């Protein structure tokens, strides 16, 4: 497996975010959140830089990253798909929907499609329980989703690609 090397500008970005929060250990959650929002994910080397900047051990940073399901060490796709598995969505078949997405995309939870277009993950409640089961694609919320809608939903992003390419 390749050893990830961070580019200097990425290191700069991480250091700036840490500095923004005063390099305070107490701000570690905010720092990690912002770094992930900026870089997309938190690979090991990113955690090493954060640890050094906040004067914490890498083991502790990894402990935090592995504890919260919000944090990911896997790169996300261009269009990250999140299937809600909160109580209401579960009751309305969120788990079956997740299986359908896995099958359709041929990808495991937490992983990215080989073309980097979609990644699949789960989350716990987006606060739209009346629309259960809920799917979020790149922040756009789809309600009352059924498995047979999946191809049409994903096709939206094909068109998007075409528009971007033309």
């Amino acid at each position, binding site marked *: 497996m390749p050893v990830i090397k961070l580019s200097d500008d990425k290191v700069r970005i991480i250091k700036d975010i840490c500095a923004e929060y005063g390099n305070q250990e107490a701000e570690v959650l905010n720092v990690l959140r912002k770094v992930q929002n900026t870089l997309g994910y938190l690979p090991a080397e990113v955690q090493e830089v954060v640890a050094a900047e906040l004067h*914490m*051990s*890498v*083991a*502790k940073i*990894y*402990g935090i990253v592995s504890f919260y399901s919000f944090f990911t060490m896997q790169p996300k796709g261009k269009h990250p798909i999140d299937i809600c598995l909160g109580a209401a969505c579960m009751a309305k078949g969120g788990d079956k929907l997740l299986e359908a997405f896995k099958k359709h995309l041929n990808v495991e939870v937490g992983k990215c499609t080989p073309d980097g277009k979609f990644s699949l993950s789960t989350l716990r409640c987006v606060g739209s329980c009346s629309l259960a089961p809920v799917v979020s694609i790149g922040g756009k919320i789809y309600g009352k989703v059924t498995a047979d809608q999946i191809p049409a939903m994903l096709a939206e992003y094909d068109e998007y690609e075409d528009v971007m390419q033309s």
Partner: protein
Amino acid sequence: MINLTIDNKPVQVPEGTTVLKAARQIGIHIPTLCYYELDGMKLENKPAGCRVCMVEIKGQKRLMAACATECKEGMEVHTNSLRAVNARRTVVELMLSDHPSDCLTCSKSGDCDLQRLSQAMGIREIPFPGEHSHHRKDISPAIIRDMDKCIMCRRCETVCNEFQTVGALHAINRGFNAVVAPAFEQDLVDSPCTFCGQCVMACPVGALNTVSHTRQVMSAINNPKKTVIVQTAPAVRVALGEEFGMQPGEVVTGKMVAALRRLGFDYVFDTDFAADLTIMEEGTELLDRISRHMAGDKSVRLPILTSCCPGWVNFFEYNFPDMLDVPSSAKSPQQMFGSIAKSYWAEKMGLKREDIVCVSIMPCVAKKYECGRDEFKVDGNPDVDFSISTRGLARLIKQYGITLSELPEEDFDRPLGESTGAGVIFGSTGGVIEAAVRTAYELYTKKSLDRVEFSQLRGIEGIREATVDFDGLPVHIGIAHGLGNARRLLEKVRSGKVQFHAIEVMACPGGCVGGAGQPFHHGNSDIIRKRQEAIYKEDRGKALRKSHENPDIIKLYNEYLGEPCGHKAHELLHTHYFDKSDKTVIEI
């Protein structure tokens, strides 16, 4: 002061005292598991996570964890109400439901806190069958992590992060998958781990343990082609007896020597001899640096740091790569011994180094790592082949049916078994530097010391400072034990806030007497203090108490080495250090 009752007994305690400690004060011992304290050494783990110490407090709906609940005025605590006892039992049963039931073959059997609790509670079956959590076993050169046995007490995490400030271990994941591991679940050997082993000392179960070399040693002993020699570190002789029911601090030097002979070692030597040798080299280096410094040589790095402790060496290689030229280049006594045994002694005996198997008995876990370092090998043959802990030696003695207490007192073999009191005190915090001062003072002033004991260098405080008068030259000395204390002292030195001529560091609390290879003290720091007292007692009983007066050391220099810190001495007795700050290789 706060007044309360525990099990109807009135007790008065200062504000901030926990229910657990208040109860202990009146002889009520509430069972604990995750709680771990090394009294007087600023080490305490009380995450209130295991819930074994739960008690009932009148007026409180829920049961409270005694380790984390502070006493309040008028509190009425019941430690053994049926509700508390049943809850505690359930907690232990639940823990056992995700714990391998392999006590018969577990390395911690007999010393396991969970096993003891289960026995005390009379648990005969586990009423919660279900899934067990599984984790990859990680075997490093010194420490084995068998995390299927982890109960998430997080003692190791507290020791590694807060006390040692090493930061190799932390709790990861959540719920059923939660476990303590290095970052990214790397192998320990790729983490910042120093192999000090204090996590092993703290682990209440068999999740963390040490690598054992006893089988290899016994097969070497039974190989007629090999000459198997053994060296024993000073701290072993003041702790070994504990494994055989003797009181902490009972000195068993002579019996230990006798036991080693009965185990079949061809020659029983003493690491104390090599400790005297270390002083000759380190003391000379100290004097050389001080006199060059006084002569205005700006290239001299002061303070000189001791380098006997392999956990400490690993620590500064990782954390202070900018100061690699500051520590003494002298090898540790273990390695000096191996080097001399396989050169000087081998030549004397007409033996080839490949035919000698050099074994060390150490109070230490990091020594297992140290003896495997590449720079301590000649053409792939290590100077020290195997390192066995105090506990490992005790196991061997028991396995061979030897009754330690009934053995006669025997003497070490010569010449590598002759030592002075200065070598003995290496086993305690402050001892290495006191031994160095005894020799450096006399070499520098050309005067004989009236008193060889330097009480200002002794004690159990984590960081100590003292000034010794070298006949008009004040020599400033710093001492730290525990790697967190060492870090604090070193950071002060690096920032220029304090100035010392010499600093002694030992990685373990109390020094080697509190080493991670010693009998488990279960957090009782009195045991460490008693071992420390025993070390100084052993020193007082020695005819010779200054390293440079050891006749066999003098002979070694005359016959073989030449001058301390001379060419040959450098070749055999000195080493160099590596920048390991970048050693973490991340592959995902």
